[in-house]
């Protein structure tokens, strides 16, 4: 009998719902294409390779942060601390640059992981709600970063500068790094036990507990990963800026990241993670910002247009209720 329905289902399935589903899954891609088309038509010098390089380089930190954010959101959580973690990473990097850029990078990333662990512990073990737990960190960690490095510090470390500015085969190194990370996260989500457990916990925590999933450990890990990635993003941004600026680095990036994730079709209610679409979401917002700047729109317009686009994109990718 099961066979029967599934066959019948097969026949039925090839109808309107599929179209919806398609828009739902690939709306972001469509939006990005549309925006690209607009620019090709109306923006001077848009098709230059240099332009694409610029956009990719600028979006890199948001992409990397969004990857972690997507995982966190998948568990029905949220991580507001990412921006401050970037700042902390910037501070640590420049503090330990004396030992060479690689050790500095490692220290910074560890710092990020520690902050992530703090947030994760609050969420998983104390049971504090993610948004406040990470809000506390958002405030405190930014402060900490400023305590460590009170003001912007420039550096001349060739290694770090190279990390930020050199490219391989015309593609900037940091972009390659972001791409690699995307692939890794994609693999983790799609192919690993951990990935399955993350979405399961986001989908129904108590059921996951009764199914013997290491809920708390998974939660903790997810926040650690988020902190780790944010820190890495911070180091790369710093390398690119050729200066460590804990004051303003990563300000409000948490909102951009969350937007990217949600525009990508990952529900804030958890239980589902869409990695590639998240990257697309980030690209969409980046292209949008670029377009508005290139066309020299005043701040007021920029913000209003962004609002509209976000709504439109999310509307397209939203989940339709059966009715």
């Amino acid at each position, binding site marked *: 009998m099961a066979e029967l329905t599934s066959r019948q289902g097969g026949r039925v399935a090839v109808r309107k719902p599929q179209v919806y589903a398609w828009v739902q899954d690939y709306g972001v891609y469509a939006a990005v294409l549309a925006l690209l088309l607009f620019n090709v038509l109306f923006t*001077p010098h*848009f098709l230059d390779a240099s332009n694409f390089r610029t956009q990719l380089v600028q979006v890199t930190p948001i992409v990397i942060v969004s990857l972690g954010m997507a995982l966190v959101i998948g568990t029905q959580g949220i991580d507001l601390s990412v921006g401050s973690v970037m700042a902390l990473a910037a501070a640590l990097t*420049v503090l330990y640059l004396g030992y060479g850029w690689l050790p500095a990078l490692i220290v910074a990333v560890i710092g990020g992981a520690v902050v992530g662990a703090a947030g994760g512990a609050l969420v998983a073990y104390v049971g504090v709600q993610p948004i406040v737990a990470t809000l506390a960190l958002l405030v405190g960690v930014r402060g900490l970063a400023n305590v460590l490095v009170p003001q912007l510090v420039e550096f*001349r*470390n060739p290694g770090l500068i190279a990390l930020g500015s050199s490219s391989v085969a015309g593609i900037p190194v940091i972009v390659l790094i972001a791409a690699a990370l995307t692939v890794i996260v994609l693999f983790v989500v799609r192919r690993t036990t951990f990935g399955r457990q993350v979405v399961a916990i986001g989908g129904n925590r108590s059921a996951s507990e009764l199914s013997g999933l290491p809920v708390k450990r998974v939660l903790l890990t997810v926040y650690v990963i988020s902190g780790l990635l944010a820190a890495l993003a911070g180091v790369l941004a710093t390398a690119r800026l050729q*200066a460590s600026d804990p*004051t303003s680095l990563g300000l409000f990036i948490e909102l951009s990241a969350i937007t990217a994730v949600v525009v990508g079709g990952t529900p804030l209610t958890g239980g589902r993670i869409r990695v590639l679409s998240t990257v697309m979401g980030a690209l969409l917002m980046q292209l949008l910002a670029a377009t508005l700047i290139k066309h020299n729109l005043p701040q007021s317009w920029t913000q209003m247009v962004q609002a509209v686009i976000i709504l439109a994109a999310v509307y397209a990718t939203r989940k339709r209720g059966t009715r």
Partner: protein
Amino acid sequence: EEPQAAPAATGTAGQQVVQSPSGSAGPTCTLQQFGGTKFDLKTAVVGFSQSEKEANPFRIAETKSIKDEAAKLGITNLKVTNAQSQFSKQITDVQQLIAQGVQLLVIAPLNSDGWEPVLQQAAAKKIPIITVDRKINAKACSDYLTFIGSDFYEQGKRAADRMIEALGGKGKVAILLGAPGNNVTTERTNGFKDRVKEKAPGITISFEQTGEFAREKGQQVTEQLIQSNPDINGIYAENDEMALGAVTALKGAGKEPGTIKIVSVDGTRSAVQGIADGWLYAVIESNPRFGPLAFETAQKFLDGAAIPDKVIISDRDYTGENAKDSLGEAY
């Protein structure tokens, strides 16, 4: 060399100088006019309300010079608050300073309007208020004592002069605006635009986007700018941080120093260094070392002397000629 923060200038180097002819022109104010009572500065409780985090050279130097001067004068009871760039918080901060019984208030306002509740309380207690670096829109000598600082509109105009000089009166200029809604942004923009309009009709301002006074934003905006408007000749950055961001962007795009003329305002050490290296064309100084002048004014006032209603300090220009030698005085 390895990491090195620009050290805030030490000693009297880069001391603020009052513009001459000093305020003796406009109206003045004395203790009796103000209706206050004399007290000893040393033993008094003094409050300083800083507006933004001490996280950029300007604010660091500003707070530092106030604290140092206080220490120098043996003022033991100095209370410092920081509004973390939240205006509502600054209002509360000052009110709580008043609640803590301060006798003299030095305020670096985040915004020029919206001070009424504070001014009322202070006036009721006859607490003299000296505002530094930004004005408060109210009546000097009754709402507050006096204002010490630069004239941002003037800075904008002088920046324009430098830009005109750099471009020989014609070309395309882009503006990196400060944070939107900020008085400084507004005045530095207007000054620049008005001057360009009157002096150099040949210059068109083809692009203005906010860099929010931050280096990274300045870099990002510039990257977009030079990519889509390769024909730009000059960039006016409303503070040094954004200018330096622009420089990083130009370097990244493989541009040579000086191909695009950059003029900015503030006079931080890195910026002046930038001039020396040929990346920046000129920097209009905005001197943050208010400590000495502020307490000097306060002392004069308490001694019964007449205080001008605004003390405008004369800021210098850093250019190719003087950059190298004045590095030490930059903050």
